[in-house]
């Protein structure tokens, strides 16, 4: 199956392989900086969450590195295209290495599927290259025959470290 274009689901209930392919495709779209297609993978009420604390449970009254709805994610994507986005002159590039995503839970009745993916993410700009190790948890559901991300949670192994700018998406 090609990862380059979106593959339609064969049935209303996605197979494990379809869930895995979806998660892998998401990382690929980020690496290829196809951010508009990437945003389309998110449901309208989706959140992208990067906790600040180890095992954080509350995104509201505990600070996060990111806790963004689709509006904020689309602002980030627009910003990356901006003529006066100086922190992206020159642009950053990134690279994901994923372990095979594991399907942690599937509930067709509730239309809810959760995958867990260990990954290394590298972001680079100018002469600097930084490696981050993380686990991505995807909460997925089927909307109008397509898989969509309801929540992507990225837990950095060193979530509480002092970082420089992290500019793209893990």
């Amino acid at each position, binding site marked *: 199956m090609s990862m380059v274009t979106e593959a339609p689901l064969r049935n209303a209930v996605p197979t494990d392989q379809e869930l895995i392919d979806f998660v892998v495709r998401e990382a690929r779209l980020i690496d290829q900086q196809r951010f508009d297609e990437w945003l389309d993978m998110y449901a309208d009420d989706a959140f992208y969450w990067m906790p*600040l604390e180890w095992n954080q449970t509350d995104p509201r009254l505990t*600070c996060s590195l*990111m806790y963004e709805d689709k509006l904020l994610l689309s*602002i980030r994507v*627009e910003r990356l295209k*901006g003529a006066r986005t100086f922190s992206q002159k020159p642009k950053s590039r990134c690279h994901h290495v994923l372990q095979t995503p594991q399907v942690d839970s599937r509930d067709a009745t509730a239309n809810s599927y959760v995958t867990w993916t260990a990954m290394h993410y590298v972001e680079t700009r100018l002469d600097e290259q930084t490696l981050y190790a993380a686990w991505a948890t995807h909460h997925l559901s089927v909307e109008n025959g397509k898989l969509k991300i309801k929540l992507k949670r990225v837990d950095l192994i060193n979530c509480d470290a002092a970082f420089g700018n992290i500019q793209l998406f893990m």
Partner: protein
Amino acid sequence: MTRYAGNAAALRALVRDQEVHRDVYVSEEVFQLEMEHMFPNSWVYVGHDSQVPNAGDYFGTTIGTQPVLLVRHTDGTVKVLHNRCPHKGTRITSETCGNTGKFFRCPYHAWSFKTDGSLLAIPLKKGYENTGFEQSHAATGMAPVRHIRNYRGFVFAKINDGGLDFEEFFGESLSSFDNMVDRSPVGQLKVAGGVLRYMHNCNWKMLVENQTDTCHPMVAHESSAGTVVEVWKKAPPGTRKPMAVEIIAPFMSPYEFFENMGIRIWDNGHGHTGVHHSIHSDYSAVPGYFDKMKAAYGEERAKAILDENRHNTVYFPNIMIKGPIQLLRHFKPIAANKTLVESWTFQLVDAPDMLLERTLMYNRLINAPTSIVGHDDLEMYERAQEGLHSNGNEWVNLQRLYSPDEAEQTNVAVNGTSEWPMRHQFRAWSKFMTMGM
């Protein structure tokens, strides 16, 4: 090569009326002298006493580059101790914060200390008999920082005996702390929500200066705040403005907005932007909050507290607070070209949770290494840190709205785009750097 050590005249010559020499940012020697003189001569923020609520609680931090411990002693008072064993220098605590019980125990040779630093016991004590140990520096235990002051929960310390006393050093600037604390119906703050940490490859003073630099937002933040404004324009009419847009969009306000908002100058490098209004002025009301404030303070006083919308208050040398959203940023110097930023948030005790929610959202949208607004700023600091190595010009210009008689003036409110606060910070820098030299 040393050019500045013991040379007060050379250090003073780095700061002119309208410009400063690049060595204040790039010279490692000047940085070392800041650590030896300027920070120890100043009242430096250590931490908030809500971080150590119970006896034995401790929090490890730095004054300049010196490691210290904020600790709650058994008698309930807060102490600041140099975080080093008097024996071999080992840092006493293994974690940044925690509870040590009734005493500290050095993990290397098990020397132990009461929570005020005094020596409690050492193993194999017989080996020190007849050695004159009682007269040694080590016998006095972990050295306390003698000059400390807890101002409404905010703990400051001064390492040197000389210099100004606390009230002289801060003067009227403490009104910004008062306003932040008074925003709680019971007049109390609590550290909450976790601390954001951000590493900057630039000099710490660039960050301090930027807190009162109102000519950069509409330029540097066009990429972030400008995009927010553009994206928000496309929302269907009547859509409720999200909290995130309320927070980021005002950074794109025009020059006129910042000129009119005003800057206040106090003694010793302190000051704040937002005398009349600020980017925090137009946040939506939080349900139930004003009623609580009115019940606690009366309507008139409650209004006066909440109408104060100070934007950034700089406390020289290295913190900034934002009263209207209960946030404190600590700019911790590591090297001439390296600074750790800690961004702390506070909960207003007995106020609605939504206020903390907004504080945390502000912190992650503006101050985080994963924020987009913060990306804009760090890019500029790091470019400046590199650009200053150019020999084309050794001076940094701080001339905007300079007035020849300004050095003698204090507690004045001036045009909001003036670079007076930065000139004023450098006058204080020069004073505390060379004090007692």
